[in-house]
C-alpha cells in the first residue's frame, strides 16, 4: 500500500491528500458524501477527462475539468446508501489527459450498521402442511436506542406473537398459519423505533 502511494506520487501530476476514505454511516443516514482534495503538482495543466463511479448509486462532482499547475481541486463523491447494510466499497475511476498517470482511482468504504437483524425474513409452509408455528429471531444491535412494538399481519391467514428473549434486544416472532389449504402470501409488520425514528421491520410469510 505504501509502495503504491509513493510510486504514484512520484510520477503522477495530481497529488491527492487521501485516495482511500472510510466512513461509518449513522442511523438513518441516507447519503454519504466525501471530498477528496488534490492539487496539480506538475508544471503543466491537467485535464480530468472522465469519471466512472460504476454505479448509479454513486455520483461524482468536480467544480471544473482542467487544473493549472499548483491549482487545488476537490472531488466530491456522494453515495446513496439505499437499503444497503454492512461494508460497502465503491471504487471511482478518473481518466486524465496526462500520459504519466492516465487513470486515477479513489476508494470509498462506507460501513452501514444494521440496526435490526431479522432472521429469517421469510417463513413459509407448503400447501397441506400441519398448522405449526415457525419463528423468526430479531436482534436489535443497539438495544438502548431501539424498541419494537406489537406485530401486525397483513393477512388473516397468519397470526403473529412477539416475545422478548433472554437478553435485551433479543426477540422471537412466532408465526402460525390459520390454514395451509391454499396458496397465500402475507407480510408481518413489526413497527420499531430506532434513535427516536420510526421504521417498520417486516417478515414475509407464505403458504406455497
Amino acid at each position, binding site marked *: 500500500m505504501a509502495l503504491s502511494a509513493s510510486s504514484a506520487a512520484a510520477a503522477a501530476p495530481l497529488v491527492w491528500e487521501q485516495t482511500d476514505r472510510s466512513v461509518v454511516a449513522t442511523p438513518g443516514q441516507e447519503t454519504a458524501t466525501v471530498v477528496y482534495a488534490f492539487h496539480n503538482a506538475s508544471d503543466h495543466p491537467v485535464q480530468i477527462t472522465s469519471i466512472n463511479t*460504476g*454505479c*448509479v*448509486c454513486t455520483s461524482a462532482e468536480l467544480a471544473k475539468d482542467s487544473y493549472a499547475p499548483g491549482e487545488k481541486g476537490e472531488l466530491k463523491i456522494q453515495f*446513496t446508501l*439505499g*437499503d*444497503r447494510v454492512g461494508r460497502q466499497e465503491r471504487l471511482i475511476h478518473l481518466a486524465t489527459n496526462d500520459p504519466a498517470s492516465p487513470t486515477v482511482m479513489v476508494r470509498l468504504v462506507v460501513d452501514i450498521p444494521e440496526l435490526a437483524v*431479522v*432472521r*429469517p*425474513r*421469510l417463513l*413459509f409452509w*407448503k400447501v397441506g402442511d400441519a398448522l405449526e408455528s415457525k419463528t423468526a429471531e430479531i436482534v436489535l444491535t443497539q438495544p438502548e436506542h431501539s424498541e419494537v412494538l406489537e406485530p401486525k399481519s397483513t393477512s388473516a391467514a397468519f397470526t403473529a406473537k412477539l416475545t422478548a428473549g433472554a437478553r435485551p434486544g433479543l426477540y422471537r416472532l412466532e408465526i402460525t398459519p390459520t390454514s395451509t389449504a391454499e396458496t397465500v*402470501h402475507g*407480510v408481518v409488520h413489526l413497527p420499531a423505533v430506532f434513535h427516536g425514528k420510526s421504521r417498520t421491520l*417486516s417478515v*414475509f410469510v*407464505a403458504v*406455497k
Partner: protein
Amino acid sequence: MAPASRDPTAVDRSGPGLFRRAIAQAGLLLLAAVVAAVVTAWFHPPPPEANAREITLAQTRTDFVGEKILWVDARPSAAFSQEHIPGAVWLSEEAWDTGLAGFVEAWTPGRPVIVYCGSTSCGASRSVARRLMRELSVTGVFYLHGGWQSWKEEPR
C-alpha cells in the same frame, strides 16, 4: 552434478533428489494446512451466503433442464423497466424491501434463483444473491457471469 551416494539408506543429495524432497515437504505443509483449515472452518463456519455461486449462461442451459429459473434483475430500476429477462423480478439494494415482496411472491421452494446485473464488472448481482441467502435462508441462489450483457449477446 553431485555424485549420488550409492548407500541406499543415505539421503539423496543430488539436485533432482533434493527437489523431490522439497515436493514431499511442501506436500506435508499442504496437508497440515488442510487440517488447520478444516479445524478453523469447524470453529468459525462460513456464513450461509458463502455458497452463492457464479454461473454462466451456458451452464444455466445444461444444469436446470426442465426447471423454471427465477431470474432476479439487480440493475437500476430504470434499466429494468426498459428491458429485462422475461419473467424476471426486480430486486436491488436501492429499495430492498420493495423488491423483496415481489421476489417472495414469485419464489417457490426448490426453484433455482439466478441474479444478474449489467455486465461482468458490476457487483450488484453477487451482493443481492448473498443477501437473499443470508436474510431469507433460501438455497440454490446463483449470480450470472456477464450479467444482462451476456444475455443480450447470446446468439439465439
